[in-house]
C-alpha cells in the first residue's frame, strides 16, 4: 500500500562526486516488497520546491525498517536533500510503481544487470534478491567518469562486475554496450536502468530472450493520476495507447514501450 510518512534520516554520506547515499528509517519500509520501485520525496515542508522528487529504492532492510537511496545532488530539490543530517526527517510517499520481476529469472540462470549513472541504484537490491534466489548475476555499470562511480565493490560481492566510463578513467572506455562486447557477456535475462539512449542501445543488442528496463520521466503526482509521465507503446507508437511510467512502470518488459 502507498503511504506517506515523515521518515527519519539515519545516515547520509557522499559516496562520489555529488552522489549521496541516504538511509531512512520508518514504518513505510514494511511496504517495500520489490526491487525497482521508487519513492516520491518532498525535500522540505515548504512551498518551494513545489514538487516531489522520484528516487529509486536502492536497498531494503525490513528487519530494521530502513531503506537506502543513492542520488545525485544536481538541482534545487536534490541539493536541499543533500543537506539533511541524521535525525532530520523527510516526507516520503511510497513505495510507488512496479519493480523488476525477479520470478522471471529461474534459479541457476544468469541475469545481466546493466545500469547507467543514477540508474545503477535500483539494481543493487535487485541483485541481492536474484542472488538469494540462486540466480547468477553479472553487473555492467556505466558512468561518466571514475569520480562519479559508486558501489563497484558492493556489486562485486554479488557477482562479476564490469565498469564502463565515457572518459575511460574506470573500466572500459565508452558505454556499457562496449563493455558487453569487450567481455562478450552472455546471459539468460537482462535487467536495466539508465538513460533512454542506453536502454535503446541495449534493446538493439538482443542480448537475451527476456529483458526488463526501468524508465525515467518527469512526474507530477507519481501515482498515475495526472498523465505527466506517459509513453507510447511499441504496438501503437503514434496512437492513443500508453503506459504511465509512475504506475504502470517504471519497469517494463523490453519491447512494451516505445523508447
Amino acid at each position, binding site marked *: 500500500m502507498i503511504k*506517506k510518512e515523515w521518515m527519519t534520516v539515519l545516515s547520509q554520506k557522499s559516496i562520489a562526486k555529488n552522489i549521496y547515499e541516504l538511509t531512512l528509517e520508518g514504518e513505510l519500509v514494511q511496504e517495500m516488497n520489490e526491487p525497482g520501485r521508487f519513492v516520491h520525496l518532498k525535500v522540505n515542508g515548504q*512551498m518551494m520546491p*513545489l*514538487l516531489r522528487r522520484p528516487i529509486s529504492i536502492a536497498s531494503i532492510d525490513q528487519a530494521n525498517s530502513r531503506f537506502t537511496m543513492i542520488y545525485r545532488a544536481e538541482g534545487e530539490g536534490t541539493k536541499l536533500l543533500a543537506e539533511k543530517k541524521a535525525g532530520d526527517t523527510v516526507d516520503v510517499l511510497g513505495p510507488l510503481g512496479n519493480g523488476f520481476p525477479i520470478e522471471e529469472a529461474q534459479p541457476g540462470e544468469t541475469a545481466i544487470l546493466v545500469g547507467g549513472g543514477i540508474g545503477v541504484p535500483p539494481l543493487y537490491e535487485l541483485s541481492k534478491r536474484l542472488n538469494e534466489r540462486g540466480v547468477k548475476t553479472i553487473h555492467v555499470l556505466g558512468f561518466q567518469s571514475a569520480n562519479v562511480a559508486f558501489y563497484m565493490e558492493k556489486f562485486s560481492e554479488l557477482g562479476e562486475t564490469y565498469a564502463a566510463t565515457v572518459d575511460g578513467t574506470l573500466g572500459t572506455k565508452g558505454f556499457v554496450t562496449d563493455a558487453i562486447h569487450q567481455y562478450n557477456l552472455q546471459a539468460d535475462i537482462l535487467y536495466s536502468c539508465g538513460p533512454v539512449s542506453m536502454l535503446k542501445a541495449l534493446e538493439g543488442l538482443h542480448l537475451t530472450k527476456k529483458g526488463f528496463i526501468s524508465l525515467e520521466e518527469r*512526474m507530477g*503526482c507519481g*501515482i*498515475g493520476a495526472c498523465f*505527466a509521465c*506517459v509513453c507510447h507503446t511499441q504496438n501503437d507508437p503514434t496512437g492513443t495507447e500508453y503506459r504511465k511510467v509512475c504506475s504502470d512502470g517504471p519497469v517494463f518488459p523490453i519491447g512494451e514501450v516505445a523508447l
Partner: protein
Amino acid sequence: MSRLQTKLPGLTLKNPIMPASGCFGFGREFSGLYDLSVLGAIMIKATTEEPRFGNPTPRVAETPGGMLNAIGLQNPGLEKVVGNEIPWLSQFDVPIIANVAGSQVEDYVEVARTISKSEYVQALELNISCPNVKTGGIAFGTVPETAKHLTKKVKEVSDVPVYVKLSPNVSNIVEMAKAVEDGGADGLTMINTLLGMRIDLKTGKPILANRTGGLSGPAIKPVAIRMIYEVSQQTTLPIIGMGGISTVEDILEFYMAGASAVAVGTANFANPFICPELIEELDAYLIEHNIDHISDLTGRSWNKDGKRTYHCS
C-alpha cells in the same frame, strides 16, 4: 459537518472542497489512498469526443512556487469515460463534475450532450481555456462572443447545469464572465492556468516538449484572487475558485474574494492527502472561529454581509 454543506446549481455538496480537473484523473488512483466519499465533489479529467494521447513528454516542469503542465488533454475519449470511468466512480458517494473539452463547437456539444446524460454526472465544467483547440485557437476562452456562443450551444444540449471554466490569460475577466453568463452558464470555475514557459539551460530548449504550458500552484494565487474578487461583484453566478490552494488560509482567502466552493489542483501532487486534510481543518477552523457556515465568508472582502445567493439551504 453541516457548516460545510454547500448547495450550488445541480450540486449538493457535503463540503465545498473538491479536486480540480486534471489533477485527480478519474479518481482511481486516489481511491487507493482514501475514501473518495469524503470529498465535496470530484472534477474529472477533461473528456474529448475521441481518445487523445496528448502532448509528447516532458509534460511538466517546476517553477518558483508553481509548475507548468502541457498534458494536452490526454483522455480515453467520451465512450470510455461514460462507459467505464464514470460508472466506476459512481460507487463513491460523491458528486461528479465532468470537464468537457473539444476543438470546435460541435465537439463540445457532442461531449456535453452525451456526458450530461450519464445518470452519475451532476454538472459539467466547460473547459474553454485549452491552448490546443483547432478552430479559433484560444478564442473560446479569450473572445467573449465566442465563449458566449459556445456556452449557449452547450446549454441547449446539457441535461445538467453548466459551469464555465475561465482562462486567466485575458485583459478583462469580467467581460468574459458576463459573456458566459449571457450565454446561460449556471456557474463559473476559475481560474485555469496562466500560459508560461521554462527553458532548460543545459539544452537551451524549453523543458516542455510542447514548449509552453499552463502555470498552476501558489504562484498564481494572487491572480486567481483578484479575478474572483472582480467577477463575483459583477455577476450573480456562483464561483468555484481554484489556483494555488494548499492551506485552509488559502480557502478562506478564496471565499472572502467571492468563491462559493473551491477546488485543489497542484497541491494534490505535493500531498495526495491534501483534500481530506483540508476538509477536516476547514471544519475545525469554522468551529474555532464561531463561523456558522462557510458561505458566510463568501465575498466578505467586498460585501459586509458576506451573504450571497448560493449557500446551504
